[in-house]
């Protein structure tokens, strides 16, 4: 009898451990929200190689800003994909407005179109971008993507975000919210990546089992806000660098001007200093009666 009781207790314990283990070792659970740029542009083309082309930038540029659509609801790593309630369309629109504000500061940008995600087809690739280009008359597209993971299980997990330029691996801890945003700016005609800017948000977990879902929702929102702020700051830096690159690397970019452009002559600081030097030299030689 005692033996049977102990056997029962032992069996219950084993089952309990096994059931618990399914959650603990099977990935820990959590929320994963993602829209993947690589999947949008290059899905089904794992072996793709971009032919080296020189983008022709027809100034002033018309820029389109859009969020890459969410790719696959049955995604990887056993995470359950959220329905993006934590990152609503109005939040996306706010971020797109902030990003368009960065572009507007530059005289080489003529107009900015905020394109709703609904106009982008999941895994649409450059064929879809060509349609957008025709529809909105844009030259350059700023494609925004994001990846957010909330770790609710025990153990150390990681968020791996596959960007166009490489994979980010971010270690996670229980109830942490890790957010990665990415803005990749493409010249649609040449399919060339002009520049990109990342943004990272990291919200430390403070949720308890009682308020877990509410707190996670709040953390998710905060994570997106942090990443967006970081992204906008990085974008500003990248835009400045791009401006310099275009001006100084004529072999990498071909500049054209749209009909009706404005032209002017320009003497820069160097030329003016040289002409000033000519004046000084003239005065000096004049005084020494050599000219």
């Amino acid at each position, binding site marked *: 009898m005692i033996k049977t009781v102990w056997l029962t207790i032992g069996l219950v314990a084993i089952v309990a451990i096994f059931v618990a283990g399914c959650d603990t070792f099977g990935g820990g659970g959590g929320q994963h929200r993602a829209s993947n740029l690589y999947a949008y542009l290059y899905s089904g083309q794992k072996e793709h190689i971009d032919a080296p082309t020189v983008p022709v930038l027809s100034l002033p540029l018309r820029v389109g800003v859009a969020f890459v659509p969410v790719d696959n609801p049955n995604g990887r790593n056993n995470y359950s994909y959220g329905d993006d309630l934590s990152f609503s369309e109005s939040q996306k629109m706010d971020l797109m407005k902030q990003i368009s504000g960065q572009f507007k500061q530059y005289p080489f940008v*003529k107009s900015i179109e905020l394109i709703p995600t609904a106009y982008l087809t999941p895994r649409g690739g450059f064929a879809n971008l060509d349609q957008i280009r025709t529809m909105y008359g844009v030259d350059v597209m700023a494609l925004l993507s994001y990846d957010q993971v909330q770790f609710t299980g025990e153990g150390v997990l990681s968020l791996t975000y596959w960007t166009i330029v490489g994979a980010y691996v971010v270690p996670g801890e229980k109830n942490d919210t890790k957010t990665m945003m990415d803005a990749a700016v493409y010249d649609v005609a040449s399919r060339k990546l002009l520049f990109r800017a990342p943004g990272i948000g990291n919200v430390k977990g403070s949720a308890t089992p009682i308020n877990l879902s509410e707190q996670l929702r709040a953390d998710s929102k905060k994570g997106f806000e942090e990443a967006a702020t970081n992204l906008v700051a990085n974008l500003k830096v990248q835009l400045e660098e791009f401006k310099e690159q275009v001006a100084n690397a004529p072999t990498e970019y071909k500049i054209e*001007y749209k009909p009706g*452009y404005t032209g002017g*002559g320009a003497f820069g*600081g160097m030329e003016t200093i040289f002409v000033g*030097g000519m004046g000084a030299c*003239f*005065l000096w030689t004049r005084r020494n009666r050599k000219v």
Partner: protein
Amino acid sequence: MDASKPQSLARRLPVITLLLIGGAVVIAQFPGWSAWLIYDRSAILSGEIWRMFTGHWVHFSTSHLVYDLLALGVAGWIIEAKNLPHFGWLCLLTPWLVSAVLLLFEPRMNLFGGLSALATTAIVYLALFGLHDAPPWRWVCLAALMGIAGKILFEMSTGRMMFVTTGDGPVAVSVAGHISGALIALLFYGQSKIIAGRDRR
């Protein structure tokens, strides 16, 4: 060659240069005038031909104005101090000729502004005459000519953009304006030499 008379620099005012600079400064003080004075291709083709001349005195920003005036001011002052021939005619004809070149060769450019084409003309004209002078002025003038040639080549290869805005978009550097300015200086220089040769004979 130095055609200047032995006068002190202080007594000789560069009248033409001061007029050129003064015009640009006055126009900059009254932004409303720019709409009536700027080189506007469609307006010129509609008969407002004065814009071919006045457009060169309209500038798109303070830095644009300052750089152009410094370059033209120094070159013009030296030209007048050295009493080089036909500077008045050069300043009178260059804007018309440069605008004609822009109308012909820059059909996509609707607006143009700035004295840099005239400044380029003045610098090249001064430097060409300076090649006949004694060193070190001769070397300075040679360097100026090489610098202008390098500047034009750089602009041709890069399609360099001025990062100023007119409210309508960026302002592109008009390479045709600079090339035509340099060629006009060469023509005036050649003609002056021919006339001087005839006078000597």
